[in-house]
């Protein structure tokens, strides 16, 4: 399937400095992720465009994009002007954000960023299989999953989850070793995926997608496609 070149763009940012050659291991999966994200974009009527370094992203490209998918980690070098454009266009409802896996573990020097992706990463004490509770099955990102979804991934922990976040997936705490190093017990538990509106804009976030198997999983790709479709208003 091809998308008309005039269709709106989805920018897929895969800048993982300083970890691209480092110990985080996030990020051998990015090429495979780009294949999956491109499929999701085309399903939503968008033309995917990968961005490995935001310093080369022109103002016009950011101004014209319909969606910004982030699979980032570390201090993504967004300029002040780019940050302002993103925040303005999200709030105007012109730019949707999809935060994938480690995107919540990025941009600590950008105060507003946590609000734009919904929470801040606070460690991943666990890598394991879990029976994920589908908290909100009435969403395009979760409708296909049933009440519970068996999944293997890094299980992220968060801080500063937006109070208005609509949590879609959450891990029941009984499935986690809460004595593990770095484990905490946040009041909002252990959400894995959420969405929310920021003024007139929409944001979808999923912390899943670390392992290559995710990017070959129809269930995961439907989760992501549903989240993106919702964020751009293509599906409800």
């Amino acid at each position, binding site marked *: 399937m091809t998308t008309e070149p005039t269709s709106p763009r989805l920018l897929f940012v895969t800048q993982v400095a300083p970890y691209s050659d480092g110990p985080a291991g996030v990020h*051998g*999966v990015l*090429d*495979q992720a*780009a*294949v*999956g994200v491109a499929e999701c974009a085309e399903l939503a009527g968008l033309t995917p465009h990968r961005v490995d370094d935001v310093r080369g992203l022109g103002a016009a490209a950011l101004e014209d994009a319909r969606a910004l998918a982030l699979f980032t980690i570390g201090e993504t070098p967004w300029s002040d002007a780019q940050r302002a454009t993103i925040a303005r266009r999200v709030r105007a409802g012109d730019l949707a954000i999809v935060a994938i896996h480690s995107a919540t573990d990025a941009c600590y020097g950008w105060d507003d960023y946590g609000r734009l992706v919904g929470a801040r990463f606070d460690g991943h004490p666990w890598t394991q299989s879990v029976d994920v509770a589908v908290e909100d099955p009435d969403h395009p990102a979760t409708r296909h999953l049933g009440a519970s979804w068996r999944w293997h991934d890094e299980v992220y922990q968060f801080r500063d989850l937006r109070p208005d976040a609509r949590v879609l997936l959450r891990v029941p705490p009984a499935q986690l070793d809460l004595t593990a190093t770095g484990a905490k017990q946040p009041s909002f538990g252990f959400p894995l995926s959420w969405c929310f509106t920021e003024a007139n804009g929409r944001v979808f976030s999923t912390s899943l997608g670390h*392992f*290559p*198997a995710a*990017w*070959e999983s129809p269930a995961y790709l439907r989760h992501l496609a549903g989240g993106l479709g919702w964020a751009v208003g293509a599906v409800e």
Partner: protein
Amino acid sequence: MFEARLEALGVELPGPFPPHDPLDAVVVHRGTARTSGCLPRDVEGHFPVGLLGRDLTTGDGAAAAECCAWNAVSLLRAALGTLDGIERVLTVSVFIACVDGFAEQPQVADGASQALVRLFGAAGRHTRSAIGVAALPRKAPVEIEVTVALRRDG
């Protein structure tokens, strides 16, 4: 003997990464064993994506084909319990995702063939087809199938 050779080569086999239902990783039938298509997954399951002649060089493709071969060996080992149950390699099909006009499929496929000969020696020689295609699963650059003959006493 092939198990010992594998150890001597110092190859860490990836996987095994079996396919999804209702496919079998390996079918053993009447003295032969045949794998499903194997992508060039590393030990963590990652693989490169893209087309030969555009995104990957012929050398990249040969390395991917070698990785495919180790995945096929891994599937066979898991299915048979030991590589020593194999008498010889019979045939290998190598599919190469490439741009129109790319003609170095044999050099790409040699990455797989040479790996199998390193492991199995003379018993690793095989017939082969190296086939250029428009696309492979998940945009992998190379996929191979391997058929082996099994030892009668295996």
